[in-house]
């Protein structure tokens, strides 16, 4: 083990920048979570602030918004898991079947470009596309005769999750597909040849060769996704609700992150916000461990 490590020293040192980064940005600030158990005040500092135990956790669990926030966080995450997660896989499988290389490249480029547009701009697009006064979506639907008068898309809570998830898919699908396309490229072509000889059609090859071959990659990403389950998305929700100004969406749009931001940061309840954030972190780690355990039990690959 040690010998092997020394032999690979030049490869091993490449990890150093990453370790430094994680140490500085993730480990050093970590002691800050202790403020969740204090009545933290910046003026008194960490050592001067009073310790209050689980006071802020109790307040969070007992707050009237708690269940609504939990529901939104979980529902939005599950929607992402079941809809936004498979979307790039499907796109990659579809692209793999495209034989015209130029067209394939074109679709790939067009679909991954939105990844590089920031959420601020994307949300601006979405809000103006969906607006009542000369919004393109309303104009289109009216011209097609589907609706009689403009619909105020962003004032109807029922539509919000759909808008949020589809915007997210539009933005990230192409970029997410890259890794799966790469995995598909790695599949041994002999298997396809053998299958052809056995008389397998396109669908058969897809189901019996391509998907099983990239399954380990899918599972790793799935586990990572489960760890993110309580990260329902912060920026996009905040921006699509016009910085929370569109209050009518709050019952469906308020997640742990936006709540922490709104109540904690905007009202200087540092400890309370930290407690809510820590609660989220603990749950996420738990889910990650469970997902990993299940994946290992099923005999496939796992993170550790």
């Amino acid at each position: 083990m040690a010998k092997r490590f020394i032999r690979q020293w030049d490869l091993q040192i490449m990890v150093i920048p990453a370790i430094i980064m994680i140490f500085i940005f993730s480990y050093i600030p970590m002691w800050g979570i202790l403020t969740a158990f204090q009545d933290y005040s910046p003026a008194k500092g960490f050592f001067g602030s009073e310790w209050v135990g689980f006071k802020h956790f109790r307040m969070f669990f007992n707050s009237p918004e708690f269940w609504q926030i939990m529901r939104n966080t979980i529902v939005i995450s599950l929607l992402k898991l079941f809809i936004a997660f498979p979307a790039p896989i499907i796109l990659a499988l579809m692209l793999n079947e495209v034989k015209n290389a130029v067209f394939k490249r074109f679709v790939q480029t067009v679909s991954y470009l939105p990844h590089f547009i920031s959420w601020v701009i994307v949300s601006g697009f979405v809000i103006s596309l969906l607006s009542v006064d000369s919004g393109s979506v309303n104009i289109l639907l009216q011209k097609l005769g589907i609706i009689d008068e403009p619909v105020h898309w962003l004032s109807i809570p029922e539509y919000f999750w759909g808008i949020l998830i589809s915007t997210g898919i539009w933005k990230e699908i192409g970029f997410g597909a890259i890794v799966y396309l790469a995995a598909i490229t790695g599949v041994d072509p002999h298997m396809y040849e053998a299958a052809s000889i056995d008389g397998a059609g396109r669908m058969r090859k897809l189901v019996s060769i391509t998907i099983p071959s990239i399954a380990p990659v899918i599972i790793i990403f799935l586990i990572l996704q489960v760890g993110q389950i309580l990260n329902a998305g912060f920026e996009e929700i905040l921006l699509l609700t016009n910085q929370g100004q569109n209050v009518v969406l709050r019952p469906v749009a308020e997640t742990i992150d936006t709540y922490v931001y709104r109540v904690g940061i905007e009202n200087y309840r540092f400890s309370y916000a930290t407690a809510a954030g820590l609660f989220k972190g603990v749950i996420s780690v738990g889910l990650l461990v469970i997902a990993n355990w299940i994946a290992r039990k099923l005999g496939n690959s796992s993170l550790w």
Partner: protein
Amino acid sequence: MNKRKWSTCLLVAVLSVSTLLAGCGSDKKESKAATENGNAGDAASKDQPLKFTMYNFDDGWQPAAWGETVTTKWVQENKKVTVDYLPTNGNAKQRFNAMYASGELPDVIALGPGPELDRLISEGQVVELDPYLDKYPNLKKSAGDMILNVNRSDDGKLYMVPDWYVGGDHMNGNGGYAVNRKIYKEMGSPKLETTTDLENYLRAVKVKYPNVIPLEVGGPYDIKMLYSAFKENTPPYFVSRMFYPDGDTVKPITEDPAFKEFILFASRLYRDKLMTQDVFTQKADQMIEKLSQGRVAVSLNVNLSGRARVPNSTLRAQDPEGGYEFIWPVHKEGLDKNKIYPNYTGREGGGKIVITKNAKDPERIFAYLDWATSDEGQAVLFFGPPGFLWDKKDENGFPIPNDKYKSMDKAELDKLQIADNIMAGNATWVDNAKVARENLLPEEERDFQTTAQVNVAWKTSMDITPFANTDPQGDSEEGIIQQSVKDIFDEAFSKMIYAKSDEEVVSILNKANEDMNKAGFPKVLEFIQKKWQDNLKKINGSK
């Protein structure tokens, strides 16, 4: 060792160093800058240039960098003062929090009306200013005792220089109703005095001009301005704060009959598509765009005199009959139109400039602020340095614009950003000086904003100084209650605007009132009540 391994090592080293720099670098730089300032201050020589950092609690305020305008260059040369603005990064509260939590407050902070000041005081972060007040007498002279007293903290001390305080009898305001002159004329210039007149006009416009927005409101707050039409002496401030005074006590706004009338009216306008449908999602730019295209029949906005200024000149350039004109605020039948107040003024000033304990030489900073708020300072900071666009002052001490100003193109003038860096503003002085300047011009050349202010906005602004600083701190018991009450109210407010029928509005209103009560609103009201009465004593005591 081969070349490849060396380049790997080099890459690793570069990456590691850059990560370290990103993580730890900024701290060192700032503290170094601070010590440099400190040395300058310790020398205590008035001829040494003074440089201090300043953070403005306002995302909308983006002044020109210091030293890049004629005005600030003059200040640098003659007053030896440089202000280093720290940007808000688009979210003033968040950046402030980050600086505060990490103990890196700037030397000077211009705070908004929120509870931040009390917090900074209670945690001993800001410098007490009383010791300087007599040594540098301009602030006392310009603001007067009443304004300073209202701004005094509970312990009786003064910790801040008010910004845009409004002394004397003057009132401030930028908002109101304006009509599109072209459409109004084509509609036969009907009477627009009562809420019924307004509603009928909007309905008629909708029929005749299907592509025009009958009533353009910029955002949710502007809807609240309609509340002022339904009762005398009730500015929209009360809706924002969710209470209204009834005699000597404050009560929840949801129990105010006038509020009910207002919300039914507003909801009806929205439901019948007479009001901007995107009011909760649009930004200021979208409103200005619609105004510029002339696609608005009537507009109502808290800063309409500012927002409609450029659209007005654009439209008038195309058609002298076009553009916008302020009208007197509408009122419910039977009310006195002179007691309708869509604007409000807190004499104490909208902003609070504090000097933090991080400042190395607070006295010199105060001396500068004191100069800035003096008539002389305001003249320079608002009209530019003497000899540039003005040479002499009139008998009231207001600068008289010279020929250069008169012949200068207005767009050219805007580019100079002469008044960008004004601070410790004396609203009464600046407003009167502006009026004096405008009165020298022929009527058609007068500035839209000033005309709107003089004729309407200032006259329809109510004095709410007694409610100064009645906002509880965010993490106090009252503050936490207020937060959840505000959540309930805000949600109910938008639901009431979106409601499909009057019955729905009433049921949401009743439910909100109940929920707010259950959340503990009376406790917040008690707090406001007490602060209000204290303020009244302070104000009456200084008369």
